[in-house]
């Protein structure tokens, strides 16, 4: 007990998303098809340029680092340049940093890897500059680009890359990882706690692990309450209750529930919208009404992004629900 106690306290001084980042490709969760192909590249020490596309927290960066670790072992950090395009965007980053890394000499390896994160944030001019650089240095550098939407990457670059699409992780994959970490850290997670983490994550492993670590700091047992509180997320049933009150025409009750979520629980308006959007199939409405709610949620989201007041937009959304059917 005391040993587990001290171990877990030690663990809390480290960020778990780094501590438990898979070191080898075979440890990367989900994406069996992708991992199999990447593994065969690595086994033959024969990489092409690659484009990883997919939402946050699905393993793009992790896979790139795992490739580097497998190829270069201890020296991986000397042979792996990570650039974040959204921090250092523009044509200069491609020209200068990439070129100097590509040109510097290095011992023993046929090529090095440049990982360009959030490549879709590069301007199209910078992408054009990149495309020729990729060919020019393909003798000694391989590029791995990552992006959320591959359609943001110009065609000539896509044509130069093998494209891998990372989809949101399955609930099972996230659940498994939560159990693994909880065991290694010696913390207790209740079943409803696991369900809550899976819900909060919505396919994003980073969110799940951060949620787990944060929740474990506040108490010895990670349960539903801890997870929802620490991640400022409304419980799915609270959202459903609020929406159903609105659908029944009880606007006052719905509004006071909204008020409680926004003020007492400190949940952001955008997150409430997001949760309504995710829960829509749980509501007791027909398909057409469900689609209309989705569209109406989008409308509120759009107006808030354009600078409208989120409380009024959310209230208007709830009020409009009474009109359906």
């Amino acid at each position, binding site marked *: 007990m005391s040993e587990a106690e001290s171990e877990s306290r030690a663990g809390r001084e480290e960020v778990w998303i780094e501590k438990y980042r898979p070191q080898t490709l075979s440890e990367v969760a989900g994406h069996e098809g992708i991992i199999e192909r990447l593994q065969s590249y690595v086994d033959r020490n024969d990489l092409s340029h690659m484009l990883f596309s997919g939402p946050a927290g699905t393993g793009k960066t992790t896979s790139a680092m795992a490739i580097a670790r497998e190829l270069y072992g201890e020296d991986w950090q000397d042979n792996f340049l990570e650039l974040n395009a959204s921090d250092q965007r523009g044509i200069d980053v491609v020209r200068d940093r990439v070129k100097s890394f590509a040109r510097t000499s290095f011992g023993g390896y046929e090529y090095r890897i440049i990982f360009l994160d959030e490549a879709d944030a590069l301007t199209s001019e910078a992408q054009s500059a990149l495309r020729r650089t990729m060919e020019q240095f393909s003798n000694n550098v391989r590029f791995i680009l990552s992006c959320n939407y591959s359609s943001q990457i110009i065609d000539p670059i896509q*044509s130069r890359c093998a494209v891998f699409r990372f989809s949101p992780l399955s609930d099972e994959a996230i659940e498994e990882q939560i159990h693994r970490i909880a065991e290694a850290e010696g913390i207790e997670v209740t079943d409803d706690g696991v369900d809550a983490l899976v819900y909060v994550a919505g396919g994003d492993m980073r969110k799940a692990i951060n949620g787990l670590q944060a929740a474990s700091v506040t108490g010895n047992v990670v349960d539903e309450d801890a997870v929802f509180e620490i991640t400022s997320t409304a419980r799915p049933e609270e959202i459903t209750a609020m929406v159903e009150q609105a659908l029944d025409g009880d606007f006052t009750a719905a509004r006071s529930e909204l008020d409680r979520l926004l003020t007492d629980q400190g949940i952001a308006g955008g997150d409430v919208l997001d949760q309504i959007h995710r829960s829509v199939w749980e509501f007791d409405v027909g*398909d057409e009404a469900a689609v209309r709610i*989705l569209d109406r949620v989008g409308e509120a989201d759009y107006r808030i992004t354009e600078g409208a007041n989120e409380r009024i937009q959310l209230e208007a959304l709830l009020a409009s629900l009474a009109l359906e059917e």
Partner: protein
Amino acid sequence: MDWTEKYRPTTLAEVRGNDKARDALEEWAETWDDHREAVVLHGSPGVGKTSAAHALASDKGWPTIELNASDARTKDVIERVAGEAARSGTLSQGGSGRRLVIMDEADNIHGNADRGGTRAVTSLVKEADQPVILIANDFYEMSKGLRNACREIEFREVSTRSIVPVLRDICRKEDIEFEDDALQQIAEMNSGDLRGAIKDLQALTEGRDSIAAEDVITGKRDTTQGIFEYLDVVIKEGDAETALKSSYDVDETPDDLINWIADNVPKDFEGTELARAYDALARADQWLGRVRATQNYSFWKYAGDNMTAGVAAARGGQKGGWTRYGPPSYWSKLGRTKGTRKTRDYIARQIATRNGTSISTARREIMPFLATMTHHCKNRELTIAMAAAYDLDASHVSFITGSGEDTNKVQSIVEDAQQLRDDETAEASGDAFASRSDTDAAEDVSDDRPDETDGQQSIAADSADQRTESERDGETDNDDQQTEGDADDGQTGLSDFM
């Protein structure tokens, strides 16, 4: 190692799938001493433009000076390169003392980052005393001055027929057993992009020593749901939630997906169902517009909700039977007219500049009259005068008159127009030399004959439709059928736009 680099052709003879362009490039190099023009190679990604340029250099033994978008292409840099090129010409090395200047991505010289670059390139092209090759994806993105200063060679998409043998060669060299069907499918998947096909072959054979047709299918299907199965879910069977969830596995962007759905929904829906479905599609489209306007891609999900769940919800119950779904027809139309729209816009711009009207006025109020007056080049003098006044080339003259671009008639009109322009310049500068256009004009009149028998405008429109049909059947090769003086010349005429 990357196979696209490993198997990059080292001599021009190895450049595949663009024989015409290859020969034109070789001819350009052979006769460079006589004409001293620069050349621009243009075409889609992955068709072999850069490969051809380098292969040429190695054939001729010309050292290359390369200048691409990953180098800063400011005025200074370009002038330095031009200077280097000119200097090395005098230090006769390798006998000829030639140096080949290759400038990649010439359609991509940007105002801000490459200040003064565009003008410097134009002057490099005009003044460098060395052969210059410019490479571009989009010819019409290049400035007009640059376009006019260069000879043009178009690289077309590489046909499946030409891609397959390249893949076969690579398989033999890499000791990979293959089924022809597998290579055929890879080639088709990449429609025209040879580099993409080689990339796919490498990815699909990674870690194995054979490739069969099934491998290609499973390679694609693992990760993505087929679009046709998906259309079945949305249009025939699935409820709203299923339709939405299965859209996550379809490998199409919402911008493309909406066209797939909109084009196929009317095949199964009618009446109120159709109206409700289109209402949902219209809302989806509105979201796509907001994404474009704000560049906020998180709104894509609302577009997806409407076009998938919305369309599925508009249907009352399930539909049976089998429907032949097809790709959005507007795509093939767009592909067909893209070049034509550029031609139209160029002409309108020229007219607008010269006449001091707006471009849209030129298009609406002037071009239709010009088209009627110069129909099939019957009024030859007027056609020449028009071509001279608005600086039109053969494709432009062909567009307005409806006569084939490669016909002698159009070619001679363009030559005479050039002559006329030169004469005018000479007169304007008070120079009384050079004047011989009258005899030239007389010789060419006989070329007009075959055309005058038809003269019906409707034929041009019909032929455009027929062409769409044949494109759908996969015959895009119109080159061979180019006939002289035939009304059915495959040109999309001006009438399509009025």
